[in-house]
C-alpha cells in the first residue's frame, strides 16, 4: 500500500512537469493550431540562462525571474521573426521551421555551455517532506508550482480583458479583428506565455534529470502525450493529462512485471492511444467541427 501511494505521488511529481510542458504546448496550439516541436529546447535554453546567472553569483530567484522574463520576450521574438512571416505557408514549411528552431537552440546550447551534465539547484530542497519518505520537498514543490501556474492562467483568461481578447483571437480570428483585437499580437503573446511556462518547467525538472542540451527530449514527448490525452483545446485538461501520464507511467513501471522499467513509456503511450480511440479530442477536449 505504501509502495502504491509512493508511486502515485512520484508519478504526480513527474506529471507536474509533463503538465507544465503540456500547458506550454496548448498555449501555442491554441494560437496557431500547431504543436511546437521546439518547446522543450526553448525550456532547456531558458534553464541554461538561469544556470549561467547562478554561476555568476546571482541568487536563485533572481535567476529564475530573469529566465522567465527573457523566455517571455524570446517567445514573442521567435513568433514575430520566424513564424509570423510564414503564417500562411503550407504545414510542411512550418514543420521545417520548428525543426530548425529545435536544432538551432540545441546546438547553440551545446556550443555555449557544452554537453557535459550539470547539476541545477532546487529552490525547495531535496529533503523528505514532513520527514516522510513518500515525497521530497522538491517533488511537492513541482506539484505546487504547476497548480499555481494553472490557477494564474485561469484568472488571467477568465478575469482580464487581455485574457478575453486572447481567447477571442484563438476562437474566431476574423471576428476578433472586427472588434479591434490585434490578432497577430495575441498570437505573439501566446508564444511569450508559452515560452515562460516552459522555462518554469525546465527549471523545475533540471534538478531531477540534470542540465544538458538534450534533457527535455523525453519530457516533451510526455508533455505532448499529456496535452493530447487531456485535449489540446483545454489548458485544464492538458494539466490533468500531464498528471495522468506521469502516474500511469510510474505505476506501469512498478507494477507490471517483466516489461516494467524498460517499456513504461510504451505502456503509457499505449494507454493514451486507447483513450484517444474512444475520445479522439482528448478527455476534456472539444471536437472541432468545421464546415466544408
Amino acid at each position, binding site marked *: 500500500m505504501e509502495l502504491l501511494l509512493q508511486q502515485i505521488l512520484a508519478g504526480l511529481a513527474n506529471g507536474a512537469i509533463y503538465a507544465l510542458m503540456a500547458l506550454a504546448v496548448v498555449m501555442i496550439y491554441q494560437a496557431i493550431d500547431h504543436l511546437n516541436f521546439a518547446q522543450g529546447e526553448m525550456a532547456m535554453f531558458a534553464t541554461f540562462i538561469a544556470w549561467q546567472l547562478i554561476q555568476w553569483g546571482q541568487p536563485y530567484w533572481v535567476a529564475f525571474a530573469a529566465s522567465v522574463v527573457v523566455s517571455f520576450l524570446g517567445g514573442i521574438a521567435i513568433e514575430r521573426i520566424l513564424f509570423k512571416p510564414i503564417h500562411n505557408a503550407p504545414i510542411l514549411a512550418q514543420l521545417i521551421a520548428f525543426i530548425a528552431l529545435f536544432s538551432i537552440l540545441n546546438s547553440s546550447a551545446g556550443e555555449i555551455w557544452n554537453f557535459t551534465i550539470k547539476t541545477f539547484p532546487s529552490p525547495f530542497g531535496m529533503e523528505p517532506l514532513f520527514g516522510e519518505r513518500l515525497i521530497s520537498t522538491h517533488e511537492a514543490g513541482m506539484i505546487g508550482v504547476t497548480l499555481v501556474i494553472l490557477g494564474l492562467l485561469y484568472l488571467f483568461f477568465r478575469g482580464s*480583458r487581455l485574457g*478575453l*481578447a486572447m*481567447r*477571442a483571437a484563438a*476562437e*474566431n480570428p*476574423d*471576428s*476578433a*479583428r*472586427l*472588434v*479591434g*483585437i*490585434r*490578432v497577430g499580437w495575441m498570437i505573439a503573446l501566446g508564444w511569450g506565455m508559452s515560452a515562460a511556462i516552459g522555462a518554469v518547467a525546465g527549471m523545475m525538472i533540471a534538478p531531477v534529470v540534470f542540465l544538458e542540451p538534450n534533457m527535455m527530449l523525453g519530457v516533451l514527448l510526455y508533455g505532448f502525450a499529456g496535452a493530447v490525452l487531456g485535449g489540446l483545446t483545454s489548458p485544464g485538461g492538458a494539466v490533468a493529462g500531464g498528471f495522468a501520464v506521469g502516474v500511469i507511467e510510474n505505476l506501469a513501471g512498478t507494477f507490471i512485471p517483466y516489461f516494467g522499467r524498460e517499456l513504461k513509456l510504451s505502456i503509457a503511450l499505449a494507454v493514451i492511444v486507447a483513450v484517444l480511440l474512444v475520445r479522439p479530442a482528448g478527455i476534456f477536449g*472539444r471536437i472541432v467541427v468545421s464546415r466544408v
Partner: protein
Amino acid sequence: MMLEVHGLRAFYGQNEALHGIDFALAEGGIVALLGANGAGKTTTLRALSGIVRAAGEIRFDGETITGRATEDIVRLGIAHVPEGRGTFVRMTVEENLQLGAMARRDRAQIARDAKEVYAHFPRLKERRRQQAGTLSGGEQQMLAVGRALMLRPRLMLLDEPSFGLAPLIVEELFEILSRLNLELGVGMLIVEQNAELALDLAEHAYLLETGRIVMSGPSSEIRRDEAVQRAYLGY
C-alpha cells in the same frame, strides 16, 4: 459626408470583384446596397473594413482609410456586423458584448453601455450567462448588433441582418435598427437581399450588379423603378 467612396475596387487574389464603385453616406444616414447574390455587396463591406484588398478611395470623416488594417479601421468607429454574424460561440453573451468594446478604454462607460444594449435587447439580458452558440439565429443576430453597438460606432456596416430569420423576428430587428439610428445617430450601411425591407429603412439605395453600381437614388424612387420591382421586389 461621413463616408465617401470613389472608384473602389476590391480583389480576391488576382480576381477583381468590384470594378470601381462610387457612393456616399451622410452623417447619421442609412444607405442600402441592393443586388443579387454575387453582385459584390458583401465584398463592398469587406473592402470598407479592410478585410479584402482594396484600391481606390475610401474617406471616413474626410480621412483616407483605404489599405488600413481592420483593427485600426474599427478604432475609428466603424462596426462591421458580418455575414454569418461573427458570434464567439464558445463565449457567453456577456463576454461577446465585452469583446465589442475591446477597442475602447473607458471602463465605466462600457459597463453603462452594456446595460443600454440589454435595454434594447431584453432577451439577451435573460441569456447573458449562456454560451452564445446556444442562442437562436434571431438572438445571435441581436447579439451581433449589440456587440457592434458596444464600440459606440459612428457607422455600422450590416451584412444581411435578415438572413435566415423568421419574418416576425426580422420586423423586430429592423424596428430596433431604425430606433438606434434615430436615438444614437449611428450611420448605417446595410446590405440586403430583402430589398423591400432595406428600402423601408434606408433613405438612399444603390443597386449593384456584378461589381458595378447600375442604379442609385432615394429609396422611394428606386422602389418605383420597374426593373427593380421585377427583379428584386417580386411585383
